[in-house]
């Protein structure tokens, strides 16, 4: 093997090794939960920061939304199926905010263990259909699959 071939071989090996390491590490990273949305279970377990703002994600519990008449204050419960957490918010809610819908709230813990949200975002899902179809589905009692894909398609991470 002449020096030139040797150099080329070294070069290629180095690149392959580097890319290999990169891919492995990226794999490790993706197993971790990076873009933290805490779910109510984690909040119940006290895993959230005390004095920093964080995000919590979950489904709005059916029938839990209480609006203050006269101002924009609203209180609702979020669930991930196991635990629940109470969220207070003041402001205009997005169109997609409704009971049973997946949302993300940014805020801080208050003294009672509730979340004071500064922002509430509604997460949309991958399903699109006309209202009539939705009615038909409702009648068929086939609702989970359509309305809570956030939980059904990716249960492990965010919510």
């Amino acid at each position, binding site marked *: 093997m002449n020096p030139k071939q040797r150099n080329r071989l070294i070069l290629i090996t180095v690149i392959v090794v580097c890319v290999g390491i990169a891919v492995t590490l990226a794999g490790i990273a*993706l197993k971790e*939960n*990076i*873009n933290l*949305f805490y779910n109510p279970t984690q909040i119940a377990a006290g895993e959230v920061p005390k004095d920093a703002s964080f995000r919590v*994600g979950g489904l709005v519990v059916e029938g839990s939304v209480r609006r203050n008449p006269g101002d924009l204050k609203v209180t609702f419960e979020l669930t991930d199926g196991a635990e629940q957490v109470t969220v207070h918010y003041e402001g*205009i*809610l*997005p*169109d*997609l*905010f*409704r009971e049973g*819908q997946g949302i*993300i709230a940014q805020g801080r813990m208050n003294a009672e263990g509730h979340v004071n949200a500064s*922002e*509430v*975002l*509604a*997460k*949309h*899902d*991958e*399903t*699109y*259909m*006309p*209202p*009539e*179809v*939705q009615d038909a589905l409702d009648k068929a009692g086939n609702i989970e699959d359509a309305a809570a*894909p956030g939980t059904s*398609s*990716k249960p492990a*991470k*965010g919510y």
Partner: protein
Amino acid sequence: MLAWLHRLASPKRFHGLAGFFITWCGWGALVLFASGLYYSLFNSPPDYQQGESIRIMYIHVPAAWNSMFIYITMAIASLFVLVWRIKAAAAVARACAPLGAMFTFLALATGSLWGKPMWGAWWVWDARLTSELILLFLYLGFMALQSAIEDKDAAARAAGVLAIVGIINIPIIYYSVEWWNTLHQGATITLSEKPKMNTDMFISLILMSLAFKFYFVVAVLRKARNEMLEREQNSQWVKEMLGGSDERK
């Protein structure tokens, strides 16, 4: 193989081919836009949750797809410039950048317009949105570098390196919704699964996407062809062609 590639992509040949595609894709784009607009404005139903706002999708999604597709086209063209030094590819890459920037901007703008009513925010710093913003910066960088280097060939190659380095951003945009828990929704339309979407909506979306793609083909070829003509103005074939058209007069 190489010689074949060069012949196929010779400026003269490119001019002819581009002319052909411009004509036919031009008509295609017209028809597709007409039917796509009709479908998306009148024939597709409102969404069960989003109501009429869903119609933003018919611009947002095709624009977003185009923004990535154009970048890939630009990077591949740049590869041809760097490896085989094909002039037509340089012209194509150069023509891609402003179009790509335009579609990226369109995706960003329609996305935020859509985000306000749907999510409750114009803009959130999540992975999909951020990476799309980086895409815009990459296009701008590509154009800035091209315009800063005086020698056209060197400019094409230097910007080509940048385009190829930046391609790493494309998988990040595409998979961001899966790798990170973004606010932006995941893919509805994949090759592997049947879309969870009403057929009329689906047709509108596909029509509009095709219309955008055709428009891109027409626009990019027109720009590239004009540039080639300008650069080759002193060459034999351009003179012949212009001479020919003079005689016709």
